Every structure is written in C-alpha cells, then in structure tokens.
C-alpha cells in the first residue's frame, strides 16, 4: 500500500519533470487501430503513462494477453519424455497463473523500477515482452524456420514447427522466448533425443492484426500507454514525445533496431540498473548489440562466392587456353 502511494507521488513528479506533456499527448493520440496487414508496424510504450495498473490484481495488458493466448498452448502430455542426456524439462502447465515473469503462458509482464530521480524515489512500470526486432536472430537462426519475421514486423513462432531447442532464447539478447516441454512436433519424432517442447513468446497478436484488430495489450491498456501504427508514424511520435518530456527512447538502435519503442522520462541506463537478468525477466541494457551483425560482412562474401568462383574459373580457363594455344603455335613452328 505504501509502495502504491509512493508510486502515485512519483507519477506526479514525472509529470512535473516532463512538463505535463505526457498527459497532453495521451489525450491527443487516438488509440484506434493503425494496423494494416502487410504494412510495417511499430509499437510505442510510453513509460510516463504506464502506471502498472497497481489498482488491479493483474495489469490489464497482462490479463488481456493471457486471455487471448493461454488456450493456444496445447494440452501438455502427462508423462513428459525425459530428454537425453541433459535432462532439462520445463513445465509451466501447472503454473499458468504466474505473471511476474515471462513464461509459455505469460508473454508480457510488468517490471517495477524504483529510481532515485533528483533526490526523489519514484516508481516506473515497464511492460516487458518481445521487442520484435528488425533483424531478429531468434528467427533467422532457427534451424527449422519455425520462427519468422512477418512483413508487418511481427516475429511469430509457428508452434506446429518448433522443436523447442531454445536456440531462439539463447541468441535473443533479452532471452525472451520460453519453453513448454511435453507439447509439439518433437513428441512425434525422437522425443528423447531431439527437441524438448515448443518455444512461446509474444506474437504481437498477429492473428488479430490480420483481422484488423489491435493487440490485446494495446486494446486493454486503460492509460493508452501503448500504441501501434505504421512504423514511420510511431517513430515520429516517439521522437516527439521524447522531445517533449526531455526523455529517452529504447528499442530504436538496440539489437540493430526493433519494432518496439519505449519512451521514458528517465534514462534507460538508470532503468537498466534496476534489472538483473533472470530466467523470464530480461534486463534492459541500452545499446545492446546485434551479435549477428558482425557476421554480415562474411555472409556478404558468401553471397559473392559464386561470382568469385566464376572469375577464378574464367581466369584459370583463359590461362589454360592461352598456354595450350602457345604450345600449339610453338609446335607448328617447330614442325616448319
């Protein structure tokens, strides 16, 4: 209760810091859908507006997400096969209600960050979910292409193709995808030796987007702290809000750029310090690097390899041809 109070006081402080701009922009912004299938979309999460729904048992965005997605996870088999030789089983089917971290049944959670701003302790509430990166290693490096980035920007795991090897989680700088063992295609192949379930994460409610609906979290947010729209519009809006509140943006450069832009009156360096990366609870380090970017130059060389081979063959073939011709000419001369 005391914390609750603190957070409200803190909220007022923030509004002062940002000269009331957050409230004004919230009023002036439509919540309506800008989502059109196929168009590149982005989302905006305004931390000056999110209050973590502290007056509710469960934040509205989390609750909406759970309602939409929980039934999508198939029934977990009773005796989950023990993987060999490492015997890791991740079963969340009996802990579906957990909502303070990411799980296969919870794609969004709220991190509360208590930060000392100008001598005042204040609370920020940060919804955490998949960032839907512009070039997501989780998708590009999936050995079965079970995870794919859609044209509209949503990064979606096909649960019918996923083997649950958790490679996507390992290459995600925030380790977002979460595994549920005992479901999925691996059960029908070599369950003891290959695969270990299905990976789950936010899919930006891609199905709803294709029906012209908003993602559940955005639709249900009582404070309009989240927006979705054409990428350029959202980027412009994020810049504008950040300027108005003299604030900061997260997600524009991180991991090579993402489709999720956080706007905050407090620096993400400070916010990041309130987070320790734990299972299901990502941190928020600014400027986190896209590791795969380092491999791009070599990848480009691979794309040029056919031309390289062709050029080498042309050169070697021409040399051979000339040497044969020279040899013949010499013989002709020798034979008079």
């Amino acid at each position, binding site marked *: 209760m005391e914390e609750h109070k603190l957070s409200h006081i803190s909220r007022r402080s923030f509004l002062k810091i940002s000269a009331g701009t957050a409230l004004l922009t919230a009023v002036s912004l439509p919540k309506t859908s800008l989502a059109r299938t196929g168009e590149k979309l982005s989302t905006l999460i305004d931390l000056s507006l999110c209050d973590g729904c502290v007056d509710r048992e469960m934040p509205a965005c989390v609750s909406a997400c759970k309602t939409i997605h929980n039934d999508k996870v198939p029934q977990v088999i009773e005796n989950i096969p023990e*993987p060999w*030789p*490492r015997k890791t089983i991740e079963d969340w089917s009996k802990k579906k209600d957990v909502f303070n971290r990411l799980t296969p049944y919870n794609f969004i959670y709220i991190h509360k960050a208590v930060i000392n701003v100008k001598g005042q302790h204040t609370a920020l509430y940060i919804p955490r979910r998949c960032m839907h990166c*512009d*070039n*997501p*290693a989780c*998708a*590009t*490096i999936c*050995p*079965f*292409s079970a995870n*794919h*980035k*859609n*044209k509209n*920007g949503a990064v979606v795991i096909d649960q019918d193709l996923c083997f649950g*090897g*958790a*490679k996507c989680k*390992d*290459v995600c700088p925030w380790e977002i995808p979460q595994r549920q063992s005992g479901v999925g295609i691996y059960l029908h192949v070599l369950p003891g030796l290959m695969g*270990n379930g299905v990976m789950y994460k936010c899919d930006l409610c891609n199905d709803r987007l294709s029906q012209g609906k908003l993602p559940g979290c955005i639709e249900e947010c009582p404070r309009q702290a989240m927006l979705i729209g054409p990428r350029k519009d959202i980027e412009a809006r994020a810049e504008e809000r950040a300027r108005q509140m003299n604030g900061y943006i997260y997600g524009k450069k991180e991991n090579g750029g993402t489709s999720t832009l956080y706007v905050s009156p407090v620096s993400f360096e400070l916010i990041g310090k309130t987070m320790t990366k734990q299972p299901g609870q990502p941190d928020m380090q600014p400027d986190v690097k896209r*590791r*795969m970017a*380092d*491999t*791009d130059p*070599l*990848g*480009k*060389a*691979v*794309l040029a*390899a*056919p031309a*390289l*081979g*062709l050029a*080498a*063959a*042309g050169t*070697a*073939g021409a040399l*051979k041809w000339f040497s*044969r011709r020279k*040899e*013949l000419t010499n*013989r*002709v001369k020798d*034979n008079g």
Partner: protein
Amino acid sequence: MAEKILAEKNLVVRHSAIELIEHWAIAISGLILLLTGIFELPVGKRYYIITLPGLGWSADYITSLYLHYAAALVFTAAGIFHLVYHGVLGEKGMIPQKGDVVKSIAVMKSFIGIGKEPPMHKYLPEQRLAYVGMAFIILMLVLSGLVKTYKNIYAPDMSYTVLLWATWIHNSFFVLFFLAFLAHMAAIALRPNWPMVRGIFTGRVRLDYARHRHTLWLADIEKIVAVPAVTVPATASSATEAELMPEPQTLTEEESLSVVKEVPVETNDEAANQKITSDRSE
C-alpha cells in the same frame, strides 16, 4: 591436363594440381560446414559437447555461423569453379556413361568375389554415378544456403514459403551430404580402392595398379602416345571393351614400360590436338 605416365617411377599422374586443390577445398570446407551445421542445432549443451576440450564454442551459434560462412565461401566458390572450369574445357571424365549402373553392380559384385571387374576408365562407374549424386547434393546445399544467407543479412521477412523450402532443402540435403560423405569413406575403405587413395593426396597412382584396373584409361593414354596423332580417329578415347578386353592384365611389366613415354606426341592438326587434350583430361 597433366595426365601422363611416369614409367621409371611406376606412376601415372591422375590428377592435376588444380584438381587436387578443388577436391581438398571442397572436402575440408565441406567437413567444416558439416560440423558447424550440426552445431547450428541446439546440441552443444544438450549433448555436453561444450565440455569436450576445444569445443567450448560448440553452443555459441554466432561463432558457428562465422565458421559456417567462412567454409561456405570456399565451398561455393570451389564448387562453381569446378563446374565452370571443367565444363568450359570439356572435361567429362566424371559424367556417367551409358551402362554405368550395370557396370557398377558388376564392380560391387567383384568386391565379394562374384565375377570379375569390367575394364575401367580413369574413374570407376560408381565413381561417376556418385559424382553426379554428390554434385547434386552440393548444388542444392549451395543454392538453399545462399537463400538463407540472403535472408540473414537483407531479408529476415522474406516470403515464408520460400524460406521454408530453402530451410528444409538445406536440412534434408545436409543429411544426404553426411550420408554421401560416409559412403565416400566406405568406398575408400574397400581394399581394391586403396591404390586410388594416394592419387588424391599426391595426384599420382601406381602404374601397375592403373594398368591392371583402369585398362581403358591407360589404353587411351598409350594410344595417344603410340599412334601418330594425325591419324587419331575421332573416337580415340572411346576404345571399346571388345578392343581392349583381350587379356589386358597379361601385359608384362616390360611390355608395359616399353610403350611409355613422358613426352606426349602431338600433331600439327589443331583439331586433333584439341581432341587429344580433351581425352587426356578425362
């Protein structure tokens, strides 16, 4: 083509330096691709491969990707080089010929003591068949790999249908490549094939072995040497079994050496010379 008989050393030059470089570039890069391809699956941690000395990186997919790309660069360039270079020069020694399936069955039967091997060209009929199989596998791996590489760099949101095709072609042909590699090793392990192994390291095989087993190949070389070039018929390289079958193995060492020259006989006739060159490259 550097193919020639070195009688005093009891050797025949079977592969040129370029061919050796091609083979080993594809073989070594192919093995690296195989290994790093396996490490692109989540096996490093699960199977405790990371605990093996020197393989701590096996669960780091980005490191594996670096190596995979580096090897793919060599593999792709060497594969294209091979196709274009030998294609342009008209070297067709590894292209399957009519009757290769039947002949390769006869060769395999001879391994278990049933019947005799037919006389053979430079390459065994099953080598020619395997070559086409391996070339097709490599082609599919390269094409699908290029699509996947393009996706990684430029188009993570490329058509899902195209991506799924590329992915599953890559995965399926990866398995076939592994099986083909095992078959290749199994072929080497067969005793009758042992003398050929030195050829892929040094470019040379024993003359007595070649004379005994690759009768048609030796006949081609010797025919070129022995017959005046201007009279070489257009079908010089396609000496038939009937022509050459009369006990090729009965040549004595002395007889063998008597026809061997290091200096190839050439002619003023350019067309005939080109034919000779082409034949030798087989």
